[in-house]
């Protein structure tokens, strides 16, 4: 187990370097990192050259990358061009997005797994077909459409919620955005749970459990559910990273000042330091979430633990 963790950590390094380098290159090579500095006008050549020197942009890209990563590991994510520390932006943005993600994950667990179990046990019945169709619709309608429609209905037409979220973004205001953010994953969790339950329901060990004369609820909870939820739990774990990175659309619709909002602003204003900084953290979150999922997998499935 210990060796396995070490191996996984080592495997993370090239992925981390690759992903951050890719983003670093995209931002620095394809974009113009000093374009946002001189306000609306283009910088005159002399100022541009001076600025480039100041930010170390005249050096080769790989050297810039190394310098940047060196700084990152001492906790210095640089300064946005408006003078604000990137870490300061992060400290206000991340708590909001983490709250949003938490709500989304809760929706996935509570609604997704419940629906999946119910449909998996009643495969082919009307309730199953209905839910299955609903999940397809949810998966098909892009999140930004779902978000806008729910905002229109619940916020504007019926006035149940505030259409946009205040800057503090407390939990209760994030419930609808959390549901919108979760929607697609929610549908996947439902389908995955359903498939897993339906598959395992015909498995030999469930037949054994029935042949042992166990009551139905015990067969379902202890034997069927325990095995069926292994892939679901790992999916939800891996989803944490995707949700945080995917919150851009949801945050834009509901005007939530979280990570997605900062990134969106940063990209539109070509604010290099902000973009690279936030993406680096997101990639790290994604990788750690996946590592945790792998370990969780081993905890849940003894066949892997003792392999």
């Amino acid at each position, binding site marked *: 187990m210990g060796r396995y963790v070490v191996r996984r950590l080592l495997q993370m390094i*090239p992925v981390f370097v690759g992903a951050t380098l890719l983003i670093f290159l995209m931002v620095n090579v394809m974009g113009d990192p000093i374009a946002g500095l001189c306000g609306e006008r283009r910088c005159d050549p002399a100022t541009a050259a001076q600025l480039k020197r100041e930010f170390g942009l005249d050096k080769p890209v790989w050297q810039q990358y190394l310098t940047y990563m060196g700084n990152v590991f001492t906790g210095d994510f640089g300064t946005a061009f408006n003078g604000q520390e990137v870490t300061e932006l992060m400290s206000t943005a991340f708590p909001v997005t983490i709250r949003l993600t938490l709500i989304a994950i809760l929706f996935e667990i509570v609604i997704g797994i419940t629906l999946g179990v119910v449909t998996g046990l009643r495969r082919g019945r009307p309730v199953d077909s209905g839910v299955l169709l609903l999940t397809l619709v949810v998966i098909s309608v892009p999140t930004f459409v779902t978000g806008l429609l729910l905002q229109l209905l619940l916020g504007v037409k019926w006035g149940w919620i505030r259409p946009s979220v205040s800057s503090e973004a407390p939990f209760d205001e994030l419930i609808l955005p959390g549901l919108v953010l979760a929607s697609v994953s929610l549908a996947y969790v439902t389908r995955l749970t359903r498939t897993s339950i339906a598959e395992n329901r015909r498995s030999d060990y469930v037949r054994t459990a029935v042949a042992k004369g166990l009551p139905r609820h015990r067969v379902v909870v202890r034997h069927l559910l325990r095995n069926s939820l292994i892939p679901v739990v790992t999916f939800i774990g891996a989803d944490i990273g995707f949700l945080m990175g995917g919150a851009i659309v949801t945050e834009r619709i509901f005007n939530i000042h979280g990570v997605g909002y900062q990134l969106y602003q940063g*990209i539109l204003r070509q604010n290099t330091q902000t973009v690279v900084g936030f993406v680096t953290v997101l990639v790290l979150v994604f990788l750690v979430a996946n590592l945790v999922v792998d370990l969780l997998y081993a905890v849940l499935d003894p066949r892997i633990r003792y392999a």
Partner: protein
Amino acid sequence: MPDQHHEPEHAVAGTGMGGTMDLGVDEAETLERRPTGPDGTGPQGRPRSLWSDAWRDLRRNPVFIVSGLVILFLVLISLWPSAIASGSPLACDLSKAQQGSSAGHPFGFDGQGCDVYTRTVYGARTSVAVGVLATLGVAVLGSVLGALAGYFGGIWDSVLSRITDVFFAIPVVLGGLVLLSVITSNTVWPVIGFIVLLGWPQLSRIARGAVITAKQNDYVQAARALGASHSRLMLRHIAPNAVAPVIVVATIALGTYIALEATLSYLGVGLKPPSVSWGIDISAASPYIRNAPHALLWPSGALAVTVLAFIMLGDAVRDALDPKLR
């Protein structure tokens, strides 16, 4: 699923330890298993091939028929939009802005006074073009790279696995924003290029898994022992058996690529006005959501139906090719 890069199977594939959890492997394996009767015996009727069996199922499946007809219709109107929409999508009259439906303008007008019906019809062209071309690109690039890695294994396989890991670690919408925000060209090509760039790893994993499974079949081993060349093995023995999961995943992906284009256009980095795209129209309509909800609802509906049609088609094909869950 515009801001998702993964389907659950892939999340599982990415986190399961070793290749056994791979969707591709699972899928290809189940494709080998034919329906069994009670006692686990196969029916003794005439032997049926996977494809003819699947086709027989599909023809009877209403989901397949409906989604197929919707897609056919979409393709036709994206080729000849003027057949059902007489005006130009760019002919707008500000004085009619936000008006509801009227004679000759069944969907009403948007915030710029453009005819929503005409724009919705013309929007199909962008979506279908992006969806089809991006899927072709992803399918070709992804399955070739994935198949080579799966077939030759070893160092190529490891390198490819690490590269796909890198791409999976970058959130799609984020990558789109970063890459496309610096591109000024207002055509479908940058969007297609971006989707191919970030989409191929998904297909390569599927193709890799399918090829690895097909490679282990006895008859492939036999052909290899008889001295068949690599290219012959690949084309005659492995490809026909590995292609089913690739087709299924590609069909579903096509729908998600259409949604992705709309999302990027909604965020302002995909296509930009004066191009015509559902994403642009939805984005433009969202400020007027109180006064002119129709301008938002029609393109949203068209987008949703289109994506749904492709995903349902893929789902139906998957069910037909995978008898396990019948």
